[in-house]
């Protein structure tokens, strides 16, 4: 009857080094619901309400961060915007967690650790190259890598998970662009008018 034992997550059983190399898979349990939930999640980014929530959070964060300006203002605004976006995602997706983790500096440390521990392959085991020819991965895999680098936290993901993260990330980015455009228009337009606590009045209206 061992076959009846549910075969849910085999990854915790694996040894750590093996775990590092293997592409992480997400839970199998959301399987059949995945389609409904995924599209619902993506549609959530398109709602007006979500954009307003993001806008207000962003403005609050910008107000707070202005007092402690560390790096160049543009970079700081960018980081703040990304962080607020990740918070808006409520940690459901991997990219949001990766963004928040990187802010704490934890991600940077672990990334450095990984770089040190990288083991180069045994050259003799590699397939013999024809002289002068570069060993290229198939086109799709190369592009997957590029995409993995673009999406935060997407380096270790499998193809299907990466696609899922990408779709959610794209929806979130679109919302971010819409919200930031609206905010800049708001602020730029308000610059030419008599300001009486512009931000407060505009946002609450």
């Amino acid at each position, binding site marked *: *009857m061992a*076959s*009846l*034992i*549910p*075969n*849910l997550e085999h990854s915790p059983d694996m040894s750590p080094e093996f775990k590092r190399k293997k592409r992480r898979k997400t839970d*199998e*349990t959301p*399987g*059949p*619901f*995945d*389609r*409904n939930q995924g*599209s619902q999640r*993506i549609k959530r980014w398109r709602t007006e309400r979500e954009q307003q929530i993001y806008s207000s959070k962003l403005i609050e964060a*910008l107000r707070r961060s*202005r007092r402690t300006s560390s790096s160049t*203002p*543009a*970079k700081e*605004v*960018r980081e703040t*915007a*990304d962080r607020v976006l990740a918070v808006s995602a409520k940690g459901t997706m991997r990219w949001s967690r990766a963004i928040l983790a990187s802010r704490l500096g934890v991600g940077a440390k672990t990334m450095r650790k990984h770089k040190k521990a990288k083991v180069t392959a045994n050259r003799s085991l590699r397939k013999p190259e024809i002289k002068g020819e570069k060993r290229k991965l198939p*086109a*799709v895999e190369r*592009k997957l890598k*590029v*995409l993995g680098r*673009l*999406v935060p936290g997407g380096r270790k993901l499998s*193809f*299907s998970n990466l*696609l*899922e993260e990408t*779709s959610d*990330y*794209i*929806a979130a*980015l*679109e919302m*971010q*662009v*819409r919200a*930031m*455009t609206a*905010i*800049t*228009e708001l*602020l*730029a337009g308000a*610059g*030419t*008018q*008599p*300001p*009486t606590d*512009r931000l407060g009045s505009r946002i609450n209206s």
Partner: protein
Amino acid sequence: MLRGLHSLETCTYNGMDMTVLERQQARLKWQQQQNYGVQNNNPIELCASSVPQIQGFLGSSFGSGQLVEMKKPEVYLGSDDFPKFVNLSVAGPEFSASKMDLVPPEAAADYCISRTSSCQMTAFQTAVMNEEREDVILKKMESTTGRESFNKRKVEAVQDDKCKDKRIKGEVEGESEVKTKCSTEVSRNSSKGNSKASEVQKPDYIHVRARRGQATDSHSLAERARREKISKKMKCLQDLVPGCNKITGKAGMLDEIINYVQSLQRQVEFLSMKLAAVNPSVEFNVDNLPAKEFPAYVANFPAAAKSPAMANLACLQFNPLQKAVSCMLDATGHPPQTATEGVASASISIPEQALSSSCITQLQPFSTWNTDPQGLYNVYNMGFH
């Protein structure tokens, strides 16, 4: 009539070795279909239940001639005689489960088939059934490949498909597995409430169904499930990324996706710079900030204005967004000039007309500007390609 019914032997289940236990399970589950109220199933139930009951029912609706045939244990419910039954609105809920046991085993096999052979259903009913099946599958099965297989399967030719189930796994793992698999398939058509109890005990396997004429070993099935999952996600991405409708193939799609993500990130970068430039103005109090005060900030720009994007901020402060984009496009072509130009004009505050005229002449074909990201993406594409 008899001959007609016997000719329905085509509906016999080929090569399906179900044990009696499985068949009873099938019958039980199938009994629950009544809740659907699909007309077609009712005649099936009639045969499933005990003979006297059938008699009683049919007596009210059919002619007596047909009664005789229905009594026979070897009633094969096939496509041919269904037209007579289709319009029958027989209520079957009073048939209790116990009556199922009276049906001989051979007929039980057919019930498994006949519930899936929605033979003479109207198109609407078929669609409804399919959708319901799909919904039920989605809720119960882990892999959604079953949906595609239902969509593609012909309504009549069902028997072969059943043979090619992923039973290899079931056979290896014991009869209980097969039972749960079978009940999974059967319960697809049953109402959701009834089948919930049986679901809890099922282990989490990916239930896949092979289509007709496809390899059935576990490796190819797993691979096929994986491929379908991936293609589904690619289709979802196709809806998100604009201009992907014509592109087929993973590599091209991935190219578009990468481009789009990069452009979105660039837009965010660009907007954050703009926001950073506009932001300090918010902190200033009360009074209106005339344009002349801006040179204080603009003076800082030359130091940082090495990148064309930064320089554009100078124009951006004074231009509405549409013109700003045009400035940016212009600047990508001529970085250094626009930088100084932008700064100088900002400080002198002769901004808009001078800049915009030069920009707009270049971009006259683009009469409408939209600020939503996809529109901006198209603009980016035009600028960068």
